[in-house]
């Protein structure tokens, strides 16, 4: 499936969900659809996206949190699947855009391209729901599912084509993004 089309569907159905993006293409994909004060873009801290989402979900239990990241970023934090599973937030959904490659560095094969099943890893860790999607039309049903209450954290792997759409760069000023996001939640800079 096309990554930008899949992300567009997810964002159009987000409601008031807070969105955390993993560095590289997922950050560009989310920004390309539209910028939002409710988006927290990561430009680094590889392996941190799902866990930033966990801390945010625990601090904002009334808000749904969507982490949109890539297979390489998620693979760097397989332990995070264990930590998130036992923390068991019911308001955290992780969407992995899986092109089975390290797209930022020359499309080298990642572990998912060599046979590893991230959804199975999440299921084994104890996620409330976890599965892989291969077609764009499946994303519509996923969006409906994401709007329903969950029993715990959910992880969905979207198998995307290995494309490189034009980069859409959000601000790289980390303090600006942080303060804009907190202001959206009614929180001051400190």
């Amino acid at each position: 499936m096309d990554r930008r089309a899949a992300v567009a569907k997810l964002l159009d159905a987000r409601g008031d969900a807070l969105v955390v993006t993993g560095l590289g293409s997922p950050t560009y994909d989310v920004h390309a659809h539209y910028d939002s004060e409710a988006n927290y873009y990561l430009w680094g801290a590889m392996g941190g996206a799902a866990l930033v989402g966990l801390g945010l979900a625990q601090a904002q239990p009334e808000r749904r949190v969507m982490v949109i990241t890539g297979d390489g970023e998620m693979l760097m934090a397989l332990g995070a699947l264990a930590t998130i599973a036992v923390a068991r937030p019911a308001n955290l959904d992780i969407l992995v855009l899986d092109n089975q490659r390290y797209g930022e560095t020359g499309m080298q094969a990642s572990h998912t391209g060599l046979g590893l099943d991230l959804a199975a890893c999440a299921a084994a860790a104890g996620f409330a729901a976890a599965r892989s999607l291969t077609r764009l039309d499946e994303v519509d049903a996923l969006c409906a599912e994401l709007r329903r209450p969950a029993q715990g954290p959910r992880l969905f792997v979207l198998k995307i084509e290995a494309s490189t759409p034009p980069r859409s760069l959000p601000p790289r000023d980390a303090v600006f993004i942080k303060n804009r996001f907190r202001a959206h939640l009614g929180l001051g800079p400190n």
Partner: protein
Amino acid sequence: MNTSSEPNRDADWPEALHAVLRAADLRHASWVPDAGHARLIELLLADPAVTTNVLTSEEEGVAIATGAWLGGMRSVLLMQSSGVGNCINMLSLPVQTCTPFLTLVTMRGEWGEFNPWQVPMGKAAQKALEAIGLTVLRAETGRDLVETAAQAATMAWEADGQIALLIGQRLIGRKEW
């Protein structure tokens, strides 16, 4: 994990430490366990106002604490010095975002240490934390620890600091073999 063999002169410091952190509105905590943190972990687990996480590796807690702050909660990360090295790249997150960050690090490898494998990371911990941009404080007694933790919480959560408070192994006690 170690077990304490020497009595602490200020044996009630974990209770006082919990109290000063809660007085500073601590609401969230993560850890890779260490015997030096064992009593504080018990107190945090028993505190209904504090959300807790057990981690598989220390750097997870850096990202979790950053997310908690984004959502309005003050968080602390507990680890021992061997975990410091696991955190270095992830610490670029609170450093670059100027996100308030507080970690309490129990030291190994520096006081009556029997296990030589603990020594390299123990020796490197402060330098590594300072190299990535954290402010490092140290405490050697229970009383000093409680006072230092109170002002470290202020430096972190009121002054946007990224603070590591190292708890000397002399305070925790040498590991009993």
